[in-house]
């Protein structure tokens, strides 16, 4: 029997990017006899991709203007390591030129400022994001045959939707420690293999993961707190994926070495 262990990137494609990306993710999942989604992926999904949609939704809602929202994002994108935000904004502005046909001069004359291209675009994008967030959250547990590894320290609070969307708690209540800690600490040899597989290229993400694994290996008596659990990231998937399973991810570059260190594989949906 083949098993897919679905990571956050594939969950995101499946529920937040309807169309070809979602189809590709869902088709890949369906090629396996069984598919598992760990709740850790839902936690990452909410703290990451879903929160970015919510952030943009709320920015559009509070400015009521596409132009002002783009200006605000441009200022943020000017800070170091914000290339992806800059790229996303450029794509959005290019598409907005086409979407601008949504309103015309005669509609502005008839309906006033509501019909202005700037206001109409802001609302078009805001409302589309609202549909994506509500729909994505609703579908999160439906993409695989089972959801596994419920986390007693993490509550899946539903987003509250009104003028702005409030995601609620995104972090764990890891007291006295993360609910995954005991399972992780029970296999120090696996933790060592994972740590050895982390690239030494100097990326902050890798350094944090290595540090988190080091703490688990060398000082197992220390409680595993919420922040350290977050830093483990991809290592969690490699560690908890069932033996012989395939980690389904769009980020094989990062997952691949970790999975292989424990005799597992990582594969992209494409």
């Amino acid at each position, binding site marked *: 029997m083949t098993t897919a262990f679905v*990571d*956050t*990137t594939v969950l*995101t494609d499946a529920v*937040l*990017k*309807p*169309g070809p*990306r979602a189809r590709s993710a869902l088709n890949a999942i369906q090629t396996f006899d069984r598919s598992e989604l760990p709740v850790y992926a839902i936690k990452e999904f909410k703290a*990451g*991709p879903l929160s*970015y*949609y919510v952030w*943009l939704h709320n920015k559009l809602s509070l400015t009521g203007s596409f132009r002002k929202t783009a200006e605000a994002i441009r200022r943020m994108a000017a800070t170091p*390591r*914000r*290339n*992806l*935000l800059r*790229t*996303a904004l450029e*794509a*959005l502005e*290019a*598409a907005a030129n086409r*979407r601008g*046909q*949504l*309103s*015309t001069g005669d*509609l502005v004359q*008839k*309906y006033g400022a*509501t*019909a202005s291209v700037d206001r*109409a675009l802001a*609302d*078009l*994008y805001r*409302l*589309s*994001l*609202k*549909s*994506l967030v*509500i*729909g994505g959250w*609703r579908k999160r547990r439906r993409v695989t045959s089972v959801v596994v590894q419920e986390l007693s320290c993490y509550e899946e609070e539903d987003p*509250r*939707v*009104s003028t702005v969307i*409030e995601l609620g708690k995104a972090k764990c209540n890891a007291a006295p420690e993360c609910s995954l800690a005991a399972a992780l600490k029970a296999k120090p040899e696996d933790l060592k293999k994972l740590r050895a597989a982390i690239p030494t290229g100097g*990326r*902050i*993400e890798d350094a944090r993961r290595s540090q988190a694994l080091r703490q688990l290996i060398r000082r197992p008596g220390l409680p595993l707190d919420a922040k350290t659990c977050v830093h483990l*990231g*991809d290592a969690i998937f490699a560690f908890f994926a069932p033996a012989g399973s395939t980690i389904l*991810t*769009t980020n094989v570059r*990062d997952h691949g070495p970790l999975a292989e260190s424990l005799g597992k594989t990582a594969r992209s949906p494409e």
Partner: protein
Amino acid sequence: MTHSDETAISSGGMTSSTLATIVPDPHTPSMLTVQSITTSVTGGSGGLVDMADLYPDTQISAGLRSALAQLDDIDGLLVEGLGGLRDEGIIASDDAVQRAQAVLRELFCFRWLGDGFGQVIGALNLSLSNQDGLPLTAEQIGVLRGRIRKVREEPFLSDQTAAQEVEQLAEGGLNPFATELFAFADVGDDDSVR
């Protein structure tokens, strides 16, 4: 906490039933806000009374009446589009859909009726503009009509209901989302991007 109030009024052989779902305002917990209102009216003969007839002119804004009239116009044009596919050919059908699209743009100006209304009308606009000029199939027109009828019956639909209606468009072979937004799902710090 969610609280529902149902009020039934009988008059002239008609019974009107209004169900209001009230929830705490997330910003001001001491305040309550109406999450959704659904109204149904049964006439003396047992048939449903039209939404537009529910509100006398003194109670309803001219906006709602205009929006409902435009929804009727769009539905009529979509029926024409279906007829075109059956009898006159794809150009006649596409022309009717294009005219519906023009009315849909205007209908988006009534999004102040509520975000549920705005979500569905915005998604209908996106569905058509994302076709990039490709004519609709009979099935796709049918899916559009279903959403138009839903908003016509329930213009004050909730955000949750609206999101389900938008999902129906996607399941019906249309693309009701602004796909340029998808890149924003990946904008975490570049260093930790996966």
